């Protein structure tokens, strides 16, 4: 159901490798609305990461369309309002989509604060003072203000991931993409990261979260996508997906993970 508040419209998205021999994504169509917290679940190799990474063109799709801010990201050129053909500025679109990775990917040669201010300063042209103030505010929100001058190596996994989340938030993205943000964490640290994400959801951030945490998908997500074999097999509210699954692959999957 496309609403007025649709933020990203994905149509028949395809990502094929080896001339079609491997179909990592095989025709996925979905609307992502403002404020959606969308959990993407499915067995390993089903194309969840590929789907997420296609949204900000970390992977270049081989077919279909992704409309974001009125622009089709899969086309190298598009027509602007005045009818002129302009080149797609992927860098400026990417800053509107924050991304959080399984392995944090903090920059190890920079302090936490430097990690946080790099993009706001270099991409948005903020001055250092403003960027640092903003960074410290964000760090405070995740309880890490006192670690601003530490290096990533000095932080625990959970702390690193919390920094990674606010580093992305510093760019004020319109949507946050998470690829298994808690899979590389020791079990006792999963909670602190999920708490930050719940907080974010409560504030109305649009989120797409690839996750193995069924509890999170159920509790925080307002929509759940189930993928298998590069296809979107079923989508619905957490209640529909977890209590009344229709698709046989989904039933099979849930039997295994729940």
């Amino acid at each position, binding site marked *: 159901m496309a609403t007025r508040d649709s933020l990203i419209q994905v149509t028949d998205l395809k990502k094929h490798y*080896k*001339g079609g021999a491997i179909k990592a994504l095989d025709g996925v169509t979905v609307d992502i609305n403002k404020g959606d917290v969308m959990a993407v679940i499915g067995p390993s190799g089903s194309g969840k990461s590929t789907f997420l990474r296609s949204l*900000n063109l*970390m992977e270049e799709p*081989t077919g279909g369309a992704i409309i974001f801010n009125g622009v089709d990201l899969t086309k190298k050129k598009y027509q602007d309002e005045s009818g002129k053909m302009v080149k797609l500025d992927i*860098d*400026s679109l*990417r*800053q509107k*989509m*924050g*991304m959080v*990775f399984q*392995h944090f*990917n*903090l*920059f*190890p*040669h920079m302090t936490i604060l430097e990690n946080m201010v*790099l*993009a706001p300063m*270099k*991409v948005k042209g903020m001055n250092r003072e403003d960027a640092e103030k903003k960074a410290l505010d964000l760090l405070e929100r995740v309880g890490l203000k006192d670690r601003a001058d530490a290096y*990533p*190596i000095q932080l625990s996994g959970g702390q690193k991931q919390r920094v*990674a989340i606010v*580093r*992305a938030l510093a*760019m004020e993205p319109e949507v946050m993409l998470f690829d298994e943000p808690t899979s590389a964490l020791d079990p006792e640290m999963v909670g602190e990261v999920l708490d930050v994400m719940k907080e974010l959801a409560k504030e109305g951030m649009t989120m797409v979260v690839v996750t193995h945490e069924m509890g999170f998908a159920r509790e925080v997500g307002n929509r759940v996508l189930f993928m298998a074999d590069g296809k979107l097999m079923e989508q619905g509210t957490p209640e529909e997906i977890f209590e009344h699954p229709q698709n046989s692959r989904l039933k099979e999957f849930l039997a295994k993970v729940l």
Partner: protein
Amino acid sequence: MDQFVKWSNFSKIVPYAELFKEGILVTVMLSLFTVMIGFCLALVLALMRMSNVRPFRALGIDKNGHQRESGALAVISRFNPLEFLATAYVEILRSTPVIVQVFIIYFGVFGVIDLPSFKLLGFIKFDRFFPGVVALGMNSGAYLCEIIRAGIQSIDGGQTEASRSLGLTQVQTLRYVVLPQALKNILPAIANEFVVIIKESAITYTIGVQDIMSAVNAVKGATFVIVEPLLVATAVYFCLCFPTSKLIAYFERRMSHGDKR
């Protein structure tokens, strides 16, 4: 039978001590400049080899707009002229003797281009020193290129992805995220290249650079003793290279300690 080494011959070298001192200075300066030029050249070569410039890209797309997987057109579409040039340069310089390269630069290139004949610091003949630096720098660039390339490739792809996902451009990503990490990793290898060049630069005495070897030659010409000045040169080269290598190894060990991620 004559003795291999005569102690009395060493005293004949003493009047030429100044030449050896100047020679050491020239060798060290030559090597420093060489590594600097080599590094800059290598950085450009490495980026060329890793670039993604494909002028015939369009030929690889078939009628349906899909990427061709095989065939001549697919091969041509992947052709990157920058990469080709850089690779050819690296392979040619690594597969030919340094002395040939030095001679080509000195007699060939600077046989055509006239250099001003003044003296740096009062004793270094610029028109010999400069071609020597250029030739060795060009050679060193080929070797350092591979070191830099490996250094860049050793950085986890997640670093680039994180940077690009924040909106940084490819160039910004290279400059702020990838290169600082890569260069830190390859610093010991670059310092080692300096040691290699100290030894290899001995070859430039053949084009009249007044390095340590040329001091040996001067003593030989004036006094007809050769083995003793060579032993002095051996000691000098050893004293330059051995401690430097050990120092590098020490810092390399220390750096790898503090760098577990």
